[in-house]
């Protein structure tokens, strides 16, 4: 019995060609069934009970420590003074390190924004607790910039296959430019002078980024770099 399309000989009883999926047109002789080459045993599903158990054990320890701190603080100070920081820090650590372990796959595009949101909430708490007002004009935009840059970096290294070096060059330029923005927010919030430190970062990152970008446009230089820095 042969496949009319590929010309290969098929197994006795085959219903279609495994290569091109062309159905077998010839009527099968009664009792001639396709031979099974493997058993029907499937591998056991990955056991995640161990990881989940460790996460919940650590969570219990964290909750116990936080509650202990809160009770001690309330009894000695009459209010949640320093224990508030402990509670918020513990919450942040839990969200950053333990929360992703509860899921089968680490999806950076979901977990990273959640982590940055938690960080922003933590900073907001510190700001409000101390009666200051640097969160909205400084901490919030800077956290946002850091989040966007991290996501772009992840996208370049994880999801993009072609033209990575060129994108990396542009990414470095973007990082350099973002330092200017950070210094601007620092200037309007704290009244520090402009262009003190960000220009160095802009020059450094910008030069490296532009060099990489230009290198991708000049094939001999690109080839030379690949040869020289081959790992």
């Amino acid at each position, binding site marked *: 019995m042969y*496949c009319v399309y*590929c*010309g*290969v*000989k*098929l*197994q006795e009883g085959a219903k279609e*060609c*495994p*290569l*091109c*999926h062309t159905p077998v047109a010839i009527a099968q002789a009664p009792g001639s069934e396709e031979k099974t*080459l*493997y*058993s*029907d*045993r*499937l*591998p056991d599903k*990955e056991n995640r009970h161990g990881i989940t158990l460790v996460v919940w054990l650590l969570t219990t320890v964290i909750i116990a420590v936080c509650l202990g701190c809160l009770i001690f603080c309330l009894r000695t100070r009459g209010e949640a003074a320093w224990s508030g920081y402990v509670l918020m820090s513990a919450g942040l650590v839990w969200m950053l390190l333990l929360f992703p372990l509860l899921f089968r796959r680490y999806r950076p595009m979901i977990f990273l924004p959640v982590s940055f949101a938690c960080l922003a909430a933590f900073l907001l708490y510190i700001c409000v607790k101390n009666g200051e007002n640097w969160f909205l004009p400084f901490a919030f935009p800077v956290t946002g910039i850091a989040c966007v840059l991290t996501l772009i970096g992840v996208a370049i290294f994880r999801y993009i*296959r072609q033209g990575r070096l060129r994108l990396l060059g542009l990414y470095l330029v973007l990082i350099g430019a973002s330092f200017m923005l950070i210094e601007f927010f620092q200037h309007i919030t704290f009244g520090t002078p402009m262009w003190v430190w960000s220009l160095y970062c802009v020059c450094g990152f910008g030069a490296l980024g532009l060099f990489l970008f230009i290198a991708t446009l000049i094939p001999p230089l690109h080839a030379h770099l*690949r*040869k020289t820095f*081959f*790992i």
Partner: protein
Amino acid sequence: MKKQWYRLDNAALIFPAIIRKNWNNVFRVSATLKEPVDPDVLDRAIEELKPRFPTCFVRLRTGFFWYYLETIAKAPKAQQDYAYPLTHMTRRELKTCCVRFLYYENRIAVEVFHSVTDGTGGLILLQNLTARYLALKYGTQIPAEGNIVDVTEAPKAEETRDCFLSCGAKRAISRAEDTAYRLSGTPETDMFRHIITGILPADKLIEKAHEQGVTVTAYLAAVLAEAVAEKQKAEGRTGRKARPVKITIPVNLRRTFGMKTMRNFTLAVNIGFDPRLGEYTHEEICALMGHLLAAETIPQRMAGRVAKNVDLQNVLLLRLIPLPIKRICMRTVYTLSGENKGCLNISNMGVVTVPEPMAPMVERFEFIIGVQYTYPNNCSVVTYGGKTYISMIRGIRETELERLFFARLVELGIPVEIESN
């Protein structure tokens, strides 16, 4: 019995470091007998084989600076085969035993984590296991010749040593080369592996290879490269968009350097052509692959390549780096450059022979290598009893590459019989 431990050989160092949650480097060798396998007798055969092959009955352990292998106290039991070959070997399994013994109907299979040994080592283990099984089951007297050893003997020192350390040249050869075209497709769910085995008459294949003046490995690599190039063209990657088509061929260094070891002793070479330079005929591709393979596998070049790998392993500063940091570095290097120099592997085990009393009881041998982390197809070849078994494994749904390859062989005048899971 006192536990022994072994350093990982030079080729094995990378494999534990690059294990992923759903992937690691495992291969499989299997023998199909004429009668159904008795699992109890197989268990006894495995137990009897254990003292003779100490480097195979090991588990993976973690040291402060390196991973190492430690012998296990009890031989593993044979288990029923799975629904598909090379199911994922988890970290927990590797910490128990790095080798898996399977049976299904008439077939005995051995799946081996690559840090333990290479395909040749795996085949020697399987042949000895089959011989021991047949001796226990049917009382057949099988002489210790070829790959079959006397299981009552103690293991030889040369079998357990890392041969890479003694065959490196004084000067290393650079590993820099072009990035190859990457095969891709729709990943299969639950890590299912499809396997399509093409059965070819060995004499016809040899005749066709000799017509082109090349070896069977070079001939099959040439046909496979043609199929890959065709697939690339079908995807619209022509002209400047095209990437070099390269096939990775593991070379058995035991023959090159005349050594016998049960550890890893192979080195891969990438050979192929660049479609950007123009069109190639079948004859030109065959000639090119034949010449390139011959040039790359001369002992001097192989020794130079080995030296490059060994030099890196011997750098004191690198050796002093704790394993967790070393692991991150090795993973990064592997991710960036480990798999992008070839499109897929074609690993040819060559002609398998067994002692005369064993031959009527063994129907066929098979050899399957797992897919790589980033490239979804791989190909392995073994010849036994006048038939060549070409196993093409894939972790994707599309069968385009297999269709192009086997249909091309048919077009070239070699009859192909197809089996799949």
